[in-house]
């Protein structure tokens, strides 16, 4: 079939959609700005709730899409409507006339330096969830103590926070924090692990069991109180101030490493592309689907489709399911149109 489909973003959403489109007989083109495919999942270590190695999923997907045209290290410069199709110009000089475009642009991690009170970039032992995953994957990080007595996780950093510009819940961080807490406890069985949360939102399949495990088998301490200040003691440890809202008392605790659970925000590069083809943005800062219930995968423009975290925070299985469905949507659109 000589229909051109451009998939913007080579994360799991883009790859899964490409895989399905290949099996439907198309030859989609993936444009990925990073040097390799895989997106955020590729930089993750293990995935909840079964502790599946992230690399297994990414490697399998990479194999599955070997028939697609892949441009890595490439950005989309512009998109413009050209009669029935779209002219997509890439920064390597290639220009494509695409009958369909799939936005699989995903998310960016919230920039934790914006919450200066948490001391990211100020104190020596404050990292984000992303930093911790990179460390799990073997990247050296001096900020993460090699023999910690106590480690803390701050939930909702840049999520459910009007002051940070995101009032929505990032959905995956609660479970991620529990996963990382368990992983830290496995590495450092002697350390006390604290999770500071506002509400624990463990909505997905087996997530609640995961929470029970963390409590029962790993002894993770859950403290209901949002951290408001982080200080540093004279000997360089991190001091966290929160309210233990359940006992109603101000609380402080000294930690060796503090992990900030940075939330999800819409990928910043979407902000440049969306206005070119007049794509609507939703109140939460993500792309607006044609309908948030029965038309999640279509945009307000014909021929432009969405999959994954570009329309809101998603887990990996949700993203993969959307990508599969998006391939069908595109197929139907091209067949009928």
């Amino acid at each position, binding site marked *: 079939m000589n229909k051109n489909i451009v998939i913007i973003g080579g994360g799991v959403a883009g790859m899964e959609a490409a895989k399905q489109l290949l099996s439907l007989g198309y030859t989609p083109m993936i444009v990925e700005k990073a040097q390799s495919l895989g997106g955020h999942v590729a930089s993750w270590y293990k995935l909840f709730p079964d502790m599946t190695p992230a690399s297994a999923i990414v490697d399998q997907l990479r194999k599955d899409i070997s028939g697609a045209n892949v441009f890595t290290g490439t950005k989309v410069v512009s998109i413009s409507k050209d009669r029935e199709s779209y002219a997509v110009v890439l920064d390597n000089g290639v220009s494509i006339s695409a009958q369909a475009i799939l936005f699989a642009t995903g998310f960016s991690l919230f920039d934790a330096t914006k919450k200066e009170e948490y001391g990211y970039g100020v104190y020596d032992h404050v990292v984000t969830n992303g930093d911790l995953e990179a460390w799990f994957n073997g990247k050296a990080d001096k900020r993460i103590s090699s023999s910690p007595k106590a480690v803390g996780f701050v939930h*909702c950093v840049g999520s459910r926070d009007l002051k940070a510009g995101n009032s929505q819940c990032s959905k995956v961080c609660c479970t991620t924090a529990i996963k990382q807490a368990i992983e830290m406890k496995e590495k450092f069985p002697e350390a006390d692990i604290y999770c500071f949360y506002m509400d624990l939102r463990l909505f997905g399949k087996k997530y609640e069991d995961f929470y029970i495990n963390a409590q029962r088998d790993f002894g993770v301490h859950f403290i209901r109180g949002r951290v408001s200040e982080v200080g540093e003691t004279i000997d360089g440890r991190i001091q966290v101030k929160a309210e233990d809202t359940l006992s109603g008392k*101000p609380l402080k605790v000294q930690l060796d490493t503090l992990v900030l659970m940075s939330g999800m925000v819409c990928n910043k590069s979407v902000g440049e592309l969306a206005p070119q083809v007049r794509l609507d943005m939703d109140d939460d800062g993500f792309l607006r689907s044609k309908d948030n219930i029965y038309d999640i995968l279509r945009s307000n423009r014909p021929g432009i489709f969405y999959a994954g975290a570009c329309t809101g925070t998603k887990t990996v299985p949700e993203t993969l399911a959307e990508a599969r469905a998006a391939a069908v949507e595109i197929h139907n659109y091209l067949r009928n149109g």
Partner: protein
Amino acid sequence: MADFGFRLSKSSTLDLDRIDTKVYDRLCDTDPDARTCMACGSCSATCTAAPFSGMSMRKVILGLQRGQDVRPMLSNCMLCGKCTMVCPRGINTRHLILSICRIYDR
């Protein structure tokens, strides 16, 4: 009083049908944002007065919702405004305190 071997003590149950939330309702008239509190405790954690008196804006709002007298809780407030700065729901807690100070009858 005769000793019956047992005493009648006031029920410690919070009876939502009977509590008086007049102060809270008046507060919500001037500061409707008060309703959006999700009791995260950020305000209490950052509070300058909390170490001295256990002042907690979260408890003040909850107390008003439950019809309690919150006046003693406010005695150490310095109006420094840090609670307003950290509130993730953008509630003007500092104005809330001033409003509460005005609502109560002397």
